[in-house]
């Protein structure tokens, strides 16, 4: 085996570790023998082989694929068989070039031609993505390329292209031409010109365009890795897996991804909880039942009977900051709690910015899976005369109006970054809440080193209640698993 491949693999493994994928030495050895057995002829097979040897769980695949493209690039420099022109110089040229490429994209999408899409991604990066200083440093920007190309505008062109031949084949039977007239097309019987599946065409094209964006991003990473070194690119240009995405930095796309993870996460937590409950019923011996059982074995207690622990189901009161800075985090946590609501005796959800509003009915009444943005976006009843969060006023509000919801059985969970915009933090009110409740914990989406900086009163609050850093899904899952009743 060549040493060049070895060092490549070691660098690749180090990059994976940098993204939170645990790769041990034995895995790297396995990857080496896998590469040896498979050979380097087929890149996709090498990818699968290395994935089998290096990965240990499914959530790591996206990071692996991105890093694989950087460390084992599909080509060096310009791709073979792809003839890309010189990047256009003037703005006019750029526009017309983008229009040409968009036309090509529409054609490739209509035909579903994978190879053409791949070549087109390479051309788009080379022609539209080259930065102004490309000649000296050789850098490319996926953002710039995609902004100029606007691939989503190719969907309409592709649709038109796909319908043209379809209309010829239908022989002009005259009834509604598919697409929008979904309910009308199927009813009139077998004579209808378009088939049932054609109503998916638009959605399919949309996901194809999303895939094309990813192609362009991967191609950009490849070109940049060549210019700046794979190590650097893999550190900065590859996205962390969804579990590790910090809540505070997550954009709408990432939040949507996270939302998709809630159902499986809550199911997993519930199963684990059930297993933990069963195990915890081993313990103290139930004397009465053991004696009764022993009658069948002549008075010798061969099979001791154990007491069932009655599960302690706490009330849960969630007090969540819904101001724009931490809204993503709060929403995610509420959705998770909604999915787990049956595990608690009673759940109360109080939202606030600087005034408290009871959201329990809106959240728990909603069907599972809905995104609840209606309940969260209406901030008018959670604000007084400004739209900044004010924790002190909120705690006073809770003590005044909602203290009846907090009893000796309730666990209170406060979500928020404890940035109180220089208002009075009212530590005494929080002490009062902590005194009434069985337990109070605070989740803070900021990293620990930021606590106490600027207008953060996190350190002050953390002296009164348990404060936990909760930056990503992995940390949240750990915390919720601990919170759940046994």
């Amino acid at each position, binding site marked *: 085996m060549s040493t060049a491949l070895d060092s490549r693999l070691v660098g690749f493994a180090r990059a994976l570790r940098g993204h939170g994928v645990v790769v041990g030495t034995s895995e790297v050895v396995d990857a080496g*023998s896998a590469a040896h057995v498979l050979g380097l002829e087929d890149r996709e097979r090498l990818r699968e*082989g290395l994935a*089998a040897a290096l990965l240990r769980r499914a959530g790591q695949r996206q990071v692996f694929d991105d890093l694989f493209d950087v460390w084992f690039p599909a080509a060096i420099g310009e791709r073979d068989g792809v003839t890309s022109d010189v990047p256009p110089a003037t703005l006019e040229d750029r526009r017309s070039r983008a229009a040409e490429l968009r036309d090509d994209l529409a054609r490739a999408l209509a035909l579903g031609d994978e190879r053409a899409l791949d070549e087109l991604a390479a051309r788009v990066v080379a022609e539209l993505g080259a930065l102004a200083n490309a000649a000296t440093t050789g850098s490319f920007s996926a953002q710039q390329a995609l902004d100029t190309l606007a691939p989503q505008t190719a969907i309409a062109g592709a649709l038109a292209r796909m319908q043209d031949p379809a209309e010829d084949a239908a022989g002009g039977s005259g009834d509604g031409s598919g697409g929008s007239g979904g309910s009308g097309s199927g009813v009139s019987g077998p004579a209808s010109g378009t088939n049932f599946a054609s109503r*998916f065409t638009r959605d399919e094209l949309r996901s194809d365009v999303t895939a094309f964006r990813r192609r362009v991003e991967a191609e950009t990473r490849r070109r940049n890795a060549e210019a700046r070194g794979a190590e650097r690119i893999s550190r900065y240009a590859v996205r962390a897996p969804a579990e590790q995405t910090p809540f505070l930095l997550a954009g709408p796309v990432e939040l949507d991804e996270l939302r998709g993870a809630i159902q499986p996460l809550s199911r*997993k937590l519930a199963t684990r909880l059930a297993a933990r409950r069963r195990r915890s019923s081993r313990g103290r011996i139930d004397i009465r039942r053991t004696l009764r059982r022993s009658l069948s074995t002549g008075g010798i207690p061969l099979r001791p009977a154990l007491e069932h622990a009655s599960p302690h189901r706490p009330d849960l009161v969630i007090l969540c900051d819904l101001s724009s800075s931490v809204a993503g985090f709060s929403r995610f946590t509420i959705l998770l709690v909604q999915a787990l609501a049956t595990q608690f005796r009673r759940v109360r959800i109080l939202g606030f910015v600087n005034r408290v509003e009871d959201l329990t009915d809106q959240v728990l009444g909603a069907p599972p899976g809905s995104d609840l943005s209606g309940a969260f976006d209406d901030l008018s009843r959670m604000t007084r005369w400004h739209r900044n969060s004010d924790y002190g006023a909120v705690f006073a509000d809770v003590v005044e109006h909602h203290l009846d919801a907090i009893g000796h059985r309730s666990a209170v969970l406060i979500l928020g970054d404890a940035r109180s915009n220089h208002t009075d933090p009212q530590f005494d009110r929080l002490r009062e809440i902590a005194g009434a409740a069985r337990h109070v914990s605070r989740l803070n989406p900021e990293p620990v080193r930021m606590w106490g900086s600027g207008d953060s009163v996190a350190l002050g609050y953390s002296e009164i209640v348990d404060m936990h850093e909760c930056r990503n899904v992995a940390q949240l899952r750990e915390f919720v698993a601990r919170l759940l009743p046994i």
Partner: protein
Amino acid sequence: MSTSAPSAAATTRFSSVDEVRERLAESGYLASDAIATTAFLADQLGKPLLVEGPAGVGKTELANAVAAATGARLIRLQCYEGVDEARALYEWNHAKQLLRITAERGSSDGWDALRDNIFSDEFLLPRPLLAAIRSEEPVVLLIDELDKADVEIEGLLLEILGDFQVTVPELGTITATHRPFVVLTSNATRELSEALRRRCLFLHIDYPTAELEQRIVTLRAPGLDDTLVASVVRLVQRLRELRLRKAPSVSETVDWARTLIALGATQDHDLSAELVRDNLGVLLKHQDDIQRAAVALDLPAPS
């Protein structure tokens, strides 16, 4: 340590990835590139294969297909909560041992001879794991739904998966004569331990691509028009993109194709919105999933 495969097991079953794919296809399993490559590696490197993925994508089927393709016997250990050493590995046949002791009571051989006698092969009941290790013929060992078993079983598996040997205190260490092809499946309801994962190659089987799924449906439910198969697969792929509680799997797609055959809809134009609405229950197993799909697919309300 990964290269220390037992010497007796140097023979491999497949010689190339393409051969894996062809022979699996002959036994009725259409493998994606990822599956074929990983199965080939598992064979070449002599490592167990840990398969994860959603229900119904063919995890268990893979083990069956490898067994059929290599002409090996399939030994299956179905895991469940509370499965223990006596169910998974081996057990002494106590009743038979007692009988032997009673029968030998009068003889003069003495206790030592008797003790050696009753802890011999004759009184050992091999369970799946031991049976796979001791087998004289090549076997495929399937450890199904390992995540359902308790954590203790994983410790038991480490010796078997790492070195393909079993230690029975009274008999010594038994090493495999034929290295079995081991497939472990998991639905990820519990995290498997790192020690176990480290000893395996990992394969995550996801839903197949549209093209592969079409071939699977054609193979498993013959008799449908090609364009109808394409439409069916497009519908299912679309459903998977919706956020459903349980996305339809390959097995559901095949079930639905068979339903269509039973209903006599074998041409593409037979597939109407009403037909889809009335039979959505074959694909989706939850009422709220069905409702959501009906809205997303723009199906007419039930009459």
